[in-house]
C-alpha cells in the first residue's frame, strides 16, 4: 500500500534554516545540511526546502546548498523559491533535487507550469498555493483566496484567484502535486485546516500535501483520516522537537494510517 508521507519543511533564508510565525519574525533554527541529514535519518519520507526570500526579492539566490543536500540524503526532496524559468528549474534539478515547487511565478505566468511539466515531467512539478480564508469576502459569507509573495509581509498580496478555482487550473496546466498552505493556521499549531483541505481534496486528482497548523500528533491523524491528504508538511514541531518522528509514525500506524515505519 502507498504510504502517507510525513514531510518536514525547512524554510531557508540566506543559507540558514529559519522559522517564523504566520510568515513573520523569522528566527534562525540552524544549518541546512545537518538538519536535512537528521530528518532523513529520523525517518522523514521527504523534505521540502523553501527559499522564503527569493520570490519577493526578485532574485535567484545562491542555491549551491541544493547540491550539498543531495550528496548527504537518501530520500526525495523538493526545492521551492524563485524558480521562474525553465533554466532555473533545470539548474535545481541538475544539482540533485527531485522536485521543484513554484508559487508566485505560476500566478504571474500560469503557462510556466505547462512548460516545466513538458520538459521535466509532470512528476517533478509541484505547485504551492498560499490560501487565506477572508471572512469579509463573498458578501460576508467568507471565501478562500490565493495570496502571493508571502515570504515578505510588506509585499504579500491577494491575487484575483479563488483557491478552489486555482486548484483546478493548476491541475489542468500539468501540476504533478499540490501543497496547500492554509495561512490562517500557519505557525500557530492549532491543527491543519481540515475543512479547507477536504474541499480542495474533492477537486484534486493529483497528490495533495497539507501545510500549516501542525502542533501535536493528533493533528496528523486527523488530517490523514478526515481530509484524505497524501502527505502532511510541518516545520516547527520538528525543529523544536515537540514531536518525535518515530512516535508520530507509530501512532499513525496504530490509528490504521498507512505509514512507513522507520
Amino acid at each position, binding site marked *: *500500500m502507498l504510504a502517507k508521507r510525513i514531510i518536514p519543511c525547512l524554510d531557508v533564508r540566506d543559507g540558514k534554516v529559519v522559522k517564523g510565525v504566520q510568515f513573520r519574525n523569522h528566527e534562525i533554527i540552524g544549518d541546512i545540511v545537518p538538519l536535512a541529514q537528521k530528518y532523513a535519518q529520523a525517518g522523514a*519520507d521527504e523534505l521540502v526546502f523553501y527559499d522564503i526570500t527569493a520570490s519577493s526579492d526578485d532574485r535567484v539566490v545562491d542555491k549551491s546548498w541544493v547540491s550539498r543536500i543531495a550528496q548527504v540524503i*537518501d*530520500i*526525495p526532496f523538493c526545492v521551492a523559491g524563485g524558480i521562474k524559468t525553465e533554466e532555473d528549474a533545470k539548474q535545481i534539478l541538475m544539482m540533485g533535487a527531485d522536485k521543484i515547487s513554484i508559487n508566485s511565478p505560476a500566478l504571474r505566468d500560469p503557462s510556466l507550469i505547462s512548460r516545466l511539466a513538458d520538459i521535466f*515531467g509532470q*512528476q517533478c512539478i509541484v505547485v504551492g498555493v498560499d490560501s487565506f480564508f477572508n471572512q469579509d469576502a463573498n458578501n460576508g459569507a467568507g471565501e478562500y483566496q490565493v495570496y502571493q509573495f508571502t515570504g515578505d509581509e510588506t509585499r504579500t498580496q491577494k491575487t484575483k484567484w479563488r483557491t478552489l478555482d486555482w486548484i483546478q487550473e493548476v491541475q489542468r496546466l500539468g501540476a504533478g*502535486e499540490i501543497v496547500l498552505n492554509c495561512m490562517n493556521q500557519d505557525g500557530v499549531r492549532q491543527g491543519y485546516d481540515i475543512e479547507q483541505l477536504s474541499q480542495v481534496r474533492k477537486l484534486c486528482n*493529483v497528490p495533495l500535501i497539507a501545510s500549516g497548523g501542525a502542533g501535536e500528533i493528533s493533528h496528523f491523524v486527523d488530517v490523514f483520516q478526515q481530509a484524505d491528504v497524501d502527505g502532511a508538511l510541518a516545520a516547527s514541531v520538528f525543529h523544536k522537537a515537540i514531536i518525535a518522528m518515530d512516535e508520530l509514525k507509530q501512532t499513525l500506524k496504530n490509528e490504521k494510517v498507512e505509514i512507513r515505519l522507520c
Partner: protein
Amino acid sequence: MSENPQANFVIVDTGCANLASVKFAVERLGFTITISDDIDVIKNADKVILPGVGSARHAMENIRAKGLVATLQQLTQPVLGFCLGMQLMTRTSAEGVGKDEVVECLGLIPTDVRPLEAKTLRLPHMGWNTLTQVSDHAIFTGISVDDYFYFVHSFAAPISEYTVARCHYGSEFSAAIAKDNFIGCQFHPERSSALGSKIIKNFLEM
C-alpha cells in the same frame, strides 16, 4: 571504500536531471563512478547505470542525438536502469506522445510501457510503496515483500515473464524487470533510504 577499487562503473549521461542524485548515492556507498556519454567509456565499463526522469520521448531524443542507441543495445556487462531508465529498456513507451502513438525505446527487455492502471487512485503514483512480490534475482538479496521503496510515475511495465518484482497501485505492475544482463527498477533506489542503497550495493558487487 570499494571492495573492488579497480572496478569501472559508469552512469550513462542521458541528459536527464537525476544524474547527480544517482552519482551521490553510489559515492555514499564508498564507490567511485563516472558520468559519461562517451561510447568507449560506456562500452568498457564493468557495470552501467541507466538513470532517467521526465518523459520517454525527451530521453530517447537525447540518446539518439548522442548516437548511443547501438552502444546501449550491444552492452554485455550488467546494466541497471532506474525509473525512466528502466522504461527505456523496453520496446516502446506510451509516455510523452499523443494517443495511439508510442515512443520506440531500446528494446533490451521485450515488454511495453503503458499508462499505469490506477483505477480510482490518484496519479502520479508518488511516494513510498511496498513490493508485493520479489524474485531471487541477485540485486534483491536482503530485500523482502513489504519493504518500502520510493516511486514517482504515471506509466508502468505490466506484469510479464520479465517481471522480477511487483508492486500494487490500483492494479499490479512491474516494480522491476530483467532479461539477461539488463535489469530495471521502476522505483528510485537512489531515493529509497537504506533499502535502496542495498539494491545499488548488490548491483555493484554482483
